């Protein structure tokens, strides 16, 4: 345990000391949020201009309103949810993806700097090296996700949390997602020689995982072949937990909220197990 927290402490210390890295990582979600959330104001398409509404008979106004509400809730979870809030919560999870994939690079980087040998020659479990890095990535992800969400709030996200317990669930989902993704990435890249290879792997993972999740659009409007991918993608589950906890207010579906959290928990445990196993077996100074 001491060795895991020592490794985690080192990672976090280095991270806190390089603010440029932190800022860089925030730019991308901000960009997506602006592009999707603001430029394509999808909910705007469904808003009926005031004067049209005023000229309609009250009966039909009600029908039109409920129709729009149905469309909105089918697409974005609840009638109150606007598209920007929808994307902002998506992006909060996407930053977790970026941070986790980026963190996998740290082993290749330590190998390059020779520091990996310091770790490998110490009487510690190989899995501790991976777990320390995974936990550090998860703390970073939590902080960065919070920052993205705060940026979203500043730009007009409408939060509607139903209860503190659900918010705790949202925090847990971010943590579990980070553990899942960074464990997988580290397991995949344990033996990579250099961070250049790692960049390739990162690009291979980042965008497909983002676009097969519900970060930018709901699963209901995905092409059929993509829907099962979205269901498997842990990103989708974290995003749904976030939306359930932060946006849907009392209309949240508790059963599916719990299911998403359970899915993430199982995924995180399996991924961390895989990462530890891979480290104990394959992490070495040899390449």
């Amino acid at each position: 345990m001491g060795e895991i927290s020592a490794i985690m402490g080192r990672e976090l210390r280095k991270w806190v000391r390089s603010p440029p890295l932190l800022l860089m990582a925030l730019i991308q979600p901000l960009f997506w949020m602006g592009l999707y959330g603001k430029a394509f104001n999808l909910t705007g398409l469904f808003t009926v201009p005031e004067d049209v509404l005023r000229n309609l008979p009250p009966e039909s106004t009600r029908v039109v309103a409920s129709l729009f509400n149905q469309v909105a809730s089918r697409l974005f979870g609840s009638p109150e949810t606007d598209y920007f809030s929808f994307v902002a919560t998506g992006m909060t999870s996407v930053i977790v993806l970026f941070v986790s994939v980026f963190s996998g690079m740290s082993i290749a980087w330590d190998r390059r700097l020779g520091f990996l040998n310091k770790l490998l020659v110490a009487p510690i479990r190989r899995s501790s090296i991976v777990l320390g890095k995974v936990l550090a990535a998860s703390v970073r992800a939590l902080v960065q996700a919070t920052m993205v969400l705060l940026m979203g709030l500043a730009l007009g996200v409408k939060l509607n949390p139903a209860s503190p317990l659900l918010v705790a669930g949202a925090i847990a989902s971010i943590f579990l997602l980070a553990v899942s993704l960074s464990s997988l990435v580290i397991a995949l890249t344990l033996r990579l020689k250099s961070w250049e290879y790692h960049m390739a792997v990162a690009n291979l993972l980042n965008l497909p995982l983002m676009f097969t999740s519900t970060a930018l659009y709901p699963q209901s409007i995905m092409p059929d072949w993509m829907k099962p991918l979205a269901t498997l993608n842990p990103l989708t589950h974290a995003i749904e937990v976030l939306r359930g906890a932060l946006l849907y207010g009392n209309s949240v579906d508790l059963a599916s909220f719990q299911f998403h959290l359970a899915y993430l928990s199982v995924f995180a445990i399996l991924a961390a197990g895989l990462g530890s196993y891979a480290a104990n077996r394959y992490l070495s100074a040899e390449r």
Partner: protein
Amino acid sequence: MGVPAIEAEDLRKVFGDVVAVDGISFSVEEGELFGLLGPNGAGKTTTINILTTLIRPTSGSARVWGYDVRTETSKVRSVIGLVPQDLTVDDELTGIENLRLMASLYHVPKDVAERRIEEVLELVDLKEAARRRVETYSGGMRKRLELAAALIHRPKVLFLDEPTLGLDVQTRAHIWDYIRRLVREEQLTVLMTTHYMEEADANCDRVAVIDRGKIMAIGSPRELKAAHGSDVIELEVQGNGIDLHSLVNGVGGVLDLRVEGSRAVLKVSRGEEVLPELVGRLIGGGAIVRRIEMRRPTLDEVFISLTGRSIREEHGSWEEVFRQRLNIRRVRG
């Protein structure tokens, strides 16, 4: 302890088609300062990496402090310290943060660690700089921090891979002071590599001369020089018309003779006795001696006599080196 501190038996390591270590065996007693001496690419680092469990040997076996480096890796790791050839302390952390990190990786309890950190900082004279980030350190300071980091957990066996490489003479002398003090005060067994002959000569109890993955000889520097070294006489005469070879050939005590135009290099068993006779012969034969020089054996000589090459020059045979020197003089002249 009846068992040697380090014991290597027929170690081999093959990388693809490169045989980096080619069946080496040696043992190091507790408390010894043992040197692996060899040119670039000899297999020194590879040997250290095997003994410190960083890489697995292709074949052969080794024990450190009685533990098998293949099967008892954890035990080996907890009794050794390694100062690697390339510096590996974390640049972005301060000296003291690096040491604290090492202490936790070696499971040193917190209160013990703080005292120990003070001690090792004292030992390597880094107290003042301890709270600065390592990226602000000089090469010598980094090496000292590296040494301190390797000592945090009071290892039994310390591995030093080129501890003085790339440092200026003064810093090298300092590092050696620290190492000698360690062996004395902390009862350490040290295995080190170097290609600075004088350092190995002055500091090691025993050395193994290693070349192309093979151990050529093992012994104390004194033994090796006595067994493999000889005095070397280099001389140069004026004019090309003289047949140096036949002039010098009859001199007694000459072990080896190489002639290159007007220059000759002789290996002799007792230089002080050969020299007068040699000069007499040359003058008697009508040669004008422009330059004559005698060197006592060094470990470098031992290396040349064992391998036919100089350890100093990174490549090339003895003859090539000789020719290169001639060329340099020619350019100057």
